């Protein structure tokens, strides 16, 4: 678990910058600091919180804001489903807690580390998840309390650091040449669907499914060729 706590720290620093910005925005939209802390602890979904709060402030409707926020969170269907191999031996209560504290970053880091070291499992996921969870609550609350006294690091390109981290994690997860075509298909389908104005959450799911189907088809074709 300790390894998870420490390994995720560079990514947690990046998430803190986002959390701080969200806290500033939410406070400007009349959310009290403790309400922001409560939301971060109970919802724990960065992009969903940002979209929901912005929609709520501009439209004033709760249902519309919630649906917009949840649509962005749909990718967690696949993310949590893929954790089955990591969490299957874990007691139920721990499992229910682990799925709440899982974020994009610690999920991806767990699989990237697992690709190099198969002994990596639930303790790493939970340790890194706790770091991200606490960071998110503290940074969003800090943003609400301290306001705009700290410069917006995202404007300096910090947002790209996440893309860079995900690229590195994908490199670590790459198993062999058989992954190449499915990953290219995934990438192309996701980009095309976003350009066709499908929401990014649905494009991510559709792109991933296209990639997985490609893997299955490729393996069937190779089996037939070999036979």
């Amino acid at each position, binding site marked *: 678990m300790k390894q998870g706590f420490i390994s995720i720290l560079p990514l947690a620093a990046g998430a803190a910058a986002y959390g701080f910005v969200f806290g500033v925005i939410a406070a400007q939209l009349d959310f009290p600091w403790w309400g922001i802390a409560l939301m971060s602890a109970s919802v724990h979904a960065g992009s969903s919180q940002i979209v929901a709060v912005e929609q709520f402030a501009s439209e004033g409707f709760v249902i519309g804001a919630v649906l917009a926020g949840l649509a962005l969170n749909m990718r967690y269907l696949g993310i949590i489903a893929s954790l*089955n191999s990591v969490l299957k031996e874990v007691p139920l209560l721990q499992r229910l807690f682990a799925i709440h504290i899982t974020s994009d970053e610690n999920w991806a880091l767990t699989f990237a580390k697992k690709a190099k070291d198969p002994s990596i499992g639930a303790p790493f996921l939970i340790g890194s998840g706790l770091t991200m969870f606490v960071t998110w609550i503290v940074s969003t609350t800090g943003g609400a309390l301290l306001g705009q006294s700290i410069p917006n690091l995202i404007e300096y390109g910090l947002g790209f650091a996440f893309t860079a981290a995900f690229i590195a994690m994908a490199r670590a997860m790459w198993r062999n040449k058989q992954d190449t075509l499915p990953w290219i298909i995934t990438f192309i389908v996701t980009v095309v669907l976003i350009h066709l104005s499908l929401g990014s959450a649905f494009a991510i799911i559709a792109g991933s499914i296209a990639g997985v189907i490609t893997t299955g088809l490729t393996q069937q074709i190779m089996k037939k060729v070999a036979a």
Partner: protein
Amino acid sequence: MTDAQWLLIGTLAFGAYSIRFLGLVSGQLISEHKYLSKFLADLPGCLIVALIASSLAGENTITWIAAAITLAIALMTNHVVMTMAFGFITIFTLNHYFV
């Protein structure tokens, strides 16, 4: 907090956890089927590539160039923190000189 703000936080929390719980249940159900369980083994890689694609879609040429350079660094180093740091330096430098 207003009633509407309480309602927003409550429904969003319930909805967000429901999605995660549904993911947990579907992961268990899928793993019980031999053919479908392979789906779970292939899913993480495809999901992370889709996350990268979604963060690059609609971005400018400089971001795409930075991503290509970052990919090269990742291929060479296979190290998350190093790639993250070089990626940040790359985008900062490109933005500084070309924007």
